Structure formats: structure tokens, C-alpha cells
């Protein structure tokens, strides 16, 4: 299978390291990248994206802390087998708050509620 690409927007208000984390996490949850797969080294990805090494290193460190990546010194960056932790009620509350904000933003922009519900269900199914 062809490995996926990663895209960052330098004009976005979201910091580049967070964009990298979010996109990689999406690929990891969706199965685009599987446990055991190797990722580009910090240097390689930084050169390809044209960003500072520290930006990529920071993103990899965040994902390693979440248990997704093995970033041991001197070895290739690899995806780890990671069991989904049970979400605490606090975590669920936090995501519900963020979801409400996102839905409100979408509704304010004119996206119909029924369409939102359909998209949300489809997205949850894809990222199971």
C-alpha cells in the first residue's frame, strides 16, 4: 500500500507541530499507518516540509507520549501497537465541549443539522 502524504499550511493559525500531530493521529486512528510501519526520520520530514527539525521532533515526541510512536534514539521512528485506553468521564466531557463548539460553528456557517449528524456518524465509523 502506498504510504499516505502529510500536508501542512504555513498560513494557518494552528502551529505546524500541532498540524503534524493532528494529521499523523488521523492516519494512525484511520489505519493509514499501521503498527510496525516506519515513519520518516525527523530530519527527512523536516527537509521535505521545509520546517525546522525541532518542529518535527516536537510533534513526534507528542505522539510518542500518547503511545503511538517509538522514537528511541538512533533507531527508525516506528508505529507502536497501542490499545485504546478507556475514556474517563472527564475526557468525554472535554470532547463533548469541543464537539459542541465545532457543531455550533458549522451550524452558524449554514451546515444543516441532519447533514452534520450523517457526517459525524460516517466519520466515527471510518475512525473506529
Amino acid at each position: 500500500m502506498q504510504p499516505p502524504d502529510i500536508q501542512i499550511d504555513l498560513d494557518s493559525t494552528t502551529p505546524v507541530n500541532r498540524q503534524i500531530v493532528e494529521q499523523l493521529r488521523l492516519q494512525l486512528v484511520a489505519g493509514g499507518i499501521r503498527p510496525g510501519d516506519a515513519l520518516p526520520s525527523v530530519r527527512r520530514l523536516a527537509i521535505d516540509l521545509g520546517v525546522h527539525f525541532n518542529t518535527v521532533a516536537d510533534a513526534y515526541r507528542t505522539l510518542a507520549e500518547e503511545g503511538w510512536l517509538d522514537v528511541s534514539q538512533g533507531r527508525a521512528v516506528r508505529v507502536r501497537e497501542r490499545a485504546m485506553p478507556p475514556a474517563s468521564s472527564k475526557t468525554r466531557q472535554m470532547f463533548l465541549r469541543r464537539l459542541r463548539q465545532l457543531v455550533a460553528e458549522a451550524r452558524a456557517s449554514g451546515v444543516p443539522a441532519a447533514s452534520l449528524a450523517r457526517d459525524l456518524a460516517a466519520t466515527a465509523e471510518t475512525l473506529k
Partner: protein
Amino acid sequence: MTHLDPIDIAIVALVGLLLHWIPLWRRHDLWFGVTVPPDFSDTPQAQLVLRRYRRWVWLLTVVAVACVLAAGALHTSVLMAAAPIIQAVGAAAAFAVVRRSVLPFAAQSPAVRSAPLEPTPEGLPGGIVSILVPLAMLAATALYLHGEWSEIPARFPAHWDIDGTPDRWADRSWRAAYGPLLTGGLVISCMFLVAEAIVHRSPRGRIAGTEAWTARFRRANLMLLVAAVWAVTATICFISLLPLLTGGGQPALIAGVVPLVLTASLAPFIVQLVRLTRDRTSGSDGTPDTCWKFGQIYINPNDPALVVEKRFGVGYTLNFGNRALWWILMGTLLGFAFVIALR
């Protein structure tokens, strides 16, 4: 007019032709080193800029031809050496000057960057063999010279004029015999260093949709570089063996033909590279226009790449904003200084 003038004039004309075409060997969304909207090159403004540049190129070529003729009439080598310099430096200056008229039409450099999550980049074409073969050629030549040491003439030509007349001689010594091999070893090491930099220290297509083109472009550059290393190595080995082949006399016609044939053998690789630039999917290179000085010198301390694609000509150039590069350049200069001191 000496008998050499036609050859020299032909070389000057060939360089003029190359400079005439060079601005067209580019990524599709670049015009004179500036990021432009797609298909800008078909507009009258773009064509006007191209015509202005080409007028300069041919004016410089006429001046260079005059230098060659004057060098022949006055028997001075200074004017002969000045001809290609006038052409190259003049064309670079013309490129920088006309580039300024393109800047008002510049498109914003794409803010969205893309990168493959493929971990390992492609290696050198042919893998380790591409490195071992030239090294083996140099080693075999050195061993042969060592074995045939007594057969090397006590005095032999070490440098020739363009018409094949020796203009510098050397006595049989290890410096004179192995000097070309040492210099050659250093030159091909530098070429492999550039190849390694392309593989490991250059971007693999920063703009979404250009990855496939970039991969082909990188491959074509690496193939040309490896072929050039082999050709240079073969030429150096041949030059090193000349004292044995010619017995210290004037080299036969073959001495001039062999390097020419080896150079000509690179033509298919160059053609392949140039043909790639016709592809309209090549987009832009993802480097900011503001970091290109005169459209030719890349200085971007925020870019971790050591080498990036050229915007004037086909191939790769250095990122002078990268601090590691300066250490590498210093090391290379020291290497050359060491070899020159040895010779």
C-alpha cells in the same frame, strides 16, 4: 585566424545556444526564478522578458566571439579565457536583471506543503556498484602504474594545449604519476557528496501533486551524476596512463577523442533531464522567492535542506543559509588545498 578559431567559435556558439534555452528548463510554475501563476509563460509579458534575456545572451556571444578572434590575432590566452567568463557571468546578470520585470506578476508561493510518509528515500542508481566501479577503476590504474613504474618515461607531458601540444612537462615521480588520480579521487568524492546530498538532504516535492515529477527529476539528476562520475573517472584513468601509452611523446589523436567520447556519452542523460522540464505537472518547488538572491543564489536559514533545485539551469544548488554547508565547503577546500600542496 589560427586553425583553432573555428573550434573555439563553435564552442562559444554552443554555450550561447545553451544559455538561449536555459530559462525554459524549469518547473512549470516558475519563470525566471519567480513563482508565477500556471501558464504565465504563454503571456505576452512573459515572452517579452524572454526576448530581452535572449537579446543579452546573443550580444554577449558576439562579444565572446570577438574575444576569441582577438586572442588568435594577438596570441594572448587572457582574451581566450575571458570569452566563456563573459558569457556565463553576463547571462547570469541578464537573468537577474530581467527577473525584476517578472516580480510584479509573481504569485504567492503556495503555503500548503506536502511530504510523503515514505521513510527511506531512493538511493543512488545502481546502489553500491555505482560507487565501487569508479573506485575500482582508480585503484586498478594506480596498481598498474606501480607495476609498470620502470616503463614510465623519465620526463613526460603533464598538460596539453587545446590543440594537443604539450605545454607543461613533469619528471617521473610519485606526485606526477599519481597526482591526477589523487585529484580525480577528490573530484569524484565531491560528486558523490553532491549525490548523497540530493538523496538525503533535498526535499522530495513540497507542493502537493508534484511528488511524482520531483521523484523522476531527482532520479534523472542522480543518473546523470553517476554517469558523470564514471566518465570523469575513465578520463582521469586514461590521462594517468598516457605517459605509458605514448612513451612520453605527444599523445595521438585518440588522446583528444577519448575524453570527447566520454563527455558525449552523457548526452542521453542530459536530454532525459531536459525533457522532464516540459512536463506541465511540475508545479513549483516550494522554496520562497524572497530567499533567492538574483534568482540564482538560495539563502534560507529556516530551510533544513542542504541542496535545492536550481532556478537558473537544471540540477541542484546549495542552500547557503545552512550552517552545516559552510563546514562541508571548508572541509572540501582543505582537501583540494592538501592535494595541490602534494602536487
